[in-house]
């Protein structure tokens, strides 16, 4: 496989990725695109911290600052964290359940391209008259009055990438329900698969409210409706509700896969079964469930009234319980294990106190009365960065190091990995710890500057220095990736030596059909069980036979691109541009034409024949 790939020219490789429906390649696409947007969002963060490093700074203007913070938040949540999490779900989940691909490979590719084009659309706003500037929450009272097309870019871009996320989530659900290998019961699924499952269910229920909100906002801004305009009988609070009914589950959509990755890392490097597996599953489901009952904790100060505030405050605090269960289980997994301090394990161990701090401030914020004091100060900024960076971003770094060999067949350098870790870890706490105090001292969030002599100067400087450390850590990791790829030293099935789940039982990277014969799963940690019985690999559950594979297709790219084009038309239609309507129609034609083609043209895929599979085995022996 790999020699075959190397012989291909650049054009052929590019075409391969543009048309692929293979979950492993789509994972790589998500990793690259998500990584790119992470760098863009990171750059924006650095600009924010430069502007705030000293009082009365004029590095950027107030208006530009609003654009930068809006794009930083939006990019990081929707275009960096989500796709990076999706990258690992795509790369690992089908392997963990012993499947040859996801249930709908074509839809998987479509989901990626929709996300990608949505993200590009959103970011093109920088070059086309200004980025959105109403905050990542885009509250209607601000957004409806934002001049220019910035907020339109937000609405249409998120709508397109949101569809991609939604169909991706549905795809994962169907895959996990229907495509588990023989013997892989629900209660034998690795925890990362479980968290993928619950996350996908959250996506299924949380994205429709966002879609509805964005549609209403689109009508308000582009087609003259008044859903959110109180002067004309609308209600601006409805947007806040719709946004947070989506928004709070969204933060759990991000953190649950992170929990999943850490739940893989702790057992692997403690060389001990995950403590309390069934309580972990229970806690995951419970968090998913409660995640839908708490959204109004973001709106305590909008005047919902004491009864509503009390109900949502108590519900919010209840989430701390299942989260606590998880923390104790991870600690007890390490307890008495023979711990190996690899790079992923560094991230995992640092995650516990960091995330815990974020959870504790979360419970503080959840006390509605106290939140009147904290709300819209840097205390909130500190809270959500502790949970999102200390939880999700740490997990993305950990997962990158852990799964790099599985995705690319090479091992990232451990020394550089640890340097990245220490730089980022120190930088993270330097940046955000002090922000708790800035908030308590009264510094409001989303301000572009502050006056000297208010007691904010030193703390802001410290915070900005921390950001530089984080930036350095990321640069070291990029360097690590480059030298690892250049050296290109291939590794075997189980490069960490202590892999427990099915993905470590097959080559790195796996052949495009994943499993020559579907494995028989005899319990939790299926591969570990076989290793303990002295076997080298999994026992096959079926005789060697033909494998049915889907064909590559360029249509997903076309469908997504059509919507991308149509979005420009819809947006400039407002300015009475003559070309706007035709552009919109052409775009929609491209999308619906591609869908029509897909529907009428039968594509039955192809078979890998038994004989070819045996051939490859012989070749493998010779090489």
């Amino acid at each position, binding site marked *: 496989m790999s020699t075959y790939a190397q012989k291909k020219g650049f054009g052929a490789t590019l075409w391969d990725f543009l048309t692929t429906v293979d979950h492993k390649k789509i994972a790589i696409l998500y990793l690259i695109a998500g990584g790119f947007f992470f760098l863009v969002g990171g750059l924006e963060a650095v600009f924010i911290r430069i502007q705030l490093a000293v009082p009365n700074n004029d590095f950027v203007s107030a208006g530009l600052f609003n654009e930068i913070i809006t794009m930083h938040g939006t990019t990081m949540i929707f275009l960096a964290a989500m796709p990076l999490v999706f990258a690992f779900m795509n790369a690992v989940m089908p392997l963990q359940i012993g499947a040859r691909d996801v249930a709908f490979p074509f839809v998987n590719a479509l989901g990626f391209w929709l996300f990608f084009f949505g993200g590009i659309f959103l970011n093109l706003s920088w070059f086309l008259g200004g980025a959105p500037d109403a905050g990542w929450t885009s509250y209607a009272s601000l957004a409806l009055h934002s001049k220019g097309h910035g907020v339109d870019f937000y609405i249409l871009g998120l709508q397109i990438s949101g569809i991609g996320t939604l169909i991706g989530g549905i795809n994962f*659900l169907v895959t996990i*329900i*229907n*495509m588990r290998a*023989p013997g892989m019961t629900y209660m034998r699924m690795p925890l990362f698969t479980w968290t993928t499952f619950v996350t996908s*269910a959250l996506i*299924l*229920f949380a994205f429709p*409210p966002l879609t509805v909100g964005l549609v209403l906002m689109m009508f308000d801004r582009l087609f003259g409706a008044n859903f959110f305009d109180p002067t004309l009988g609308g*209600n601006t*609070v*409805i947007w806040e*509700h719709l946004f947070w*009914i989506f928004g709070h589950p969204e933060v759990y959509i991000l953190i649950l896969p992170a929990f999943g990755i850490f739940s893989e890392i702790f057992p692997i490097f403690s060389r001990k079964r995950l403590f309390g597996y069934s309580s972990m599953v229970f806690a995951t489901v419970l968090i998913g469930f409660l995640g*839908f*009952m708490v959204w*109004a904790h973001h709106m305590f100060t909008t005047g*919902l*009234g004491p009864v*509503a505030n009390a109900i949502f405050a108590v519900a919010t605090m209840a989430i701390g319980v299942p989260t606590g269960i998880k923390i104790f289980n991870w600690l007890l997994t390490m307890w008495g294990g023979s711990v190996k301090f690899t790079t992923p394990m560094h991230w995992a161990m640092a995650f516990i106190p960091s995330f815990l701090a974020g959870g504790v401030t979360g419970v503080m914020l959840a006390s509605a009365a106290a939140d009147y004091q904290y709300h819209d100060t840097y205390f909130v900024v500190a809270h959500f960065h502790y949970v999102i960076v200390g939880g999700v971003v740490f997990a993305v770094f950990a997962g990158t190091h852990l799964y790099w060999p599985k995705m690319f067949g090479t091992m990232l350098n451990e020394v550089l990995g640890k340097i990245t870790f220490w730089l980022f870890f120190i930088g993270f706490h330097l940046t955000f710890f002090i922000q708790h105090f800035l908030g308590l001292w009264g510094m409001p969030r989303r301000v572009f500057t502050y006056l000297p002599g208010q007691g904010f100067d030193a703390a802001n400087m410290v915070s900005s220095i921390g950001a530089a450390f984080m930036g350095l850590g990321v640069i070291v990791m990029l360097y690590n990736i480059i030298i690892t790829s250049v050296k290109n030293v291939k590794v075997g099935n189980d490069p960490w030596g202590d892999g427990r789940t099915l993905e470590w039982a097959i080559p790195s990277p796996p052949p495009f059909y994943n499993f020559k014969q579907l494995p028989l799963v005899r319990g939790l940690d299926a591969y570990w069980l076989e290793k303990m019985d002295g076997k080298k690999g999994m026992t096959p*559950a079926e005789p060697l036979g033909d494998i049915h594979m889907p064909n590559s297709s360029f249509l997903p790219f076309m469908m997504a691109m059509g919507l991308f084009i149509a979005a420009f038309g819809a947006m400039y239609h407002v300015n009475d541009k003559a070309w706007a309507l035709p552009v919109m129609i052409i775009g929609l034609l491209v999308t619906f034409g591609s869908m029509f083609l897909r529907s009428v043209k039968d594509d039955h895929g192809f078979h890998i024949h038994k004989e070819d599979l045996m051939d490859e085995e012989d070749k493998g022996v010779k090489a």
Partner: protein
Amino acid sequence: MANQQLNSGNPRVDIEYRRKKNAEEMRYQLVSFALMIFLTLIAFSAVYIKGFTAWFTVPFIILLAVVQVIFQLYYFMHMSHKGHEAPSLFLYSGVLVGAVTILAFTTIIWW
């Protein structure tokens, strides 16, 4: 995939069993079809007959609609059959999330 045994090896047994099953299924479908028409008639007459206030007819019609949806799901879309645990789980979760949203909107935004 592997957990669905379509054939028992003896084709005759299978066909006879299926025929019986299908007849039973048909009966259920007809009964619920008749019931649904009946419910629809009731709904129409509730509006048609003078003397009921809107405070009675509107909730009453909604109630009938819910009953019909359940019939539809269970008898026509085969949710009563085995192997529909996952769809029903997701359906009910969706209903729950939707209900919480509507409850919140009706209690703290609109009224």
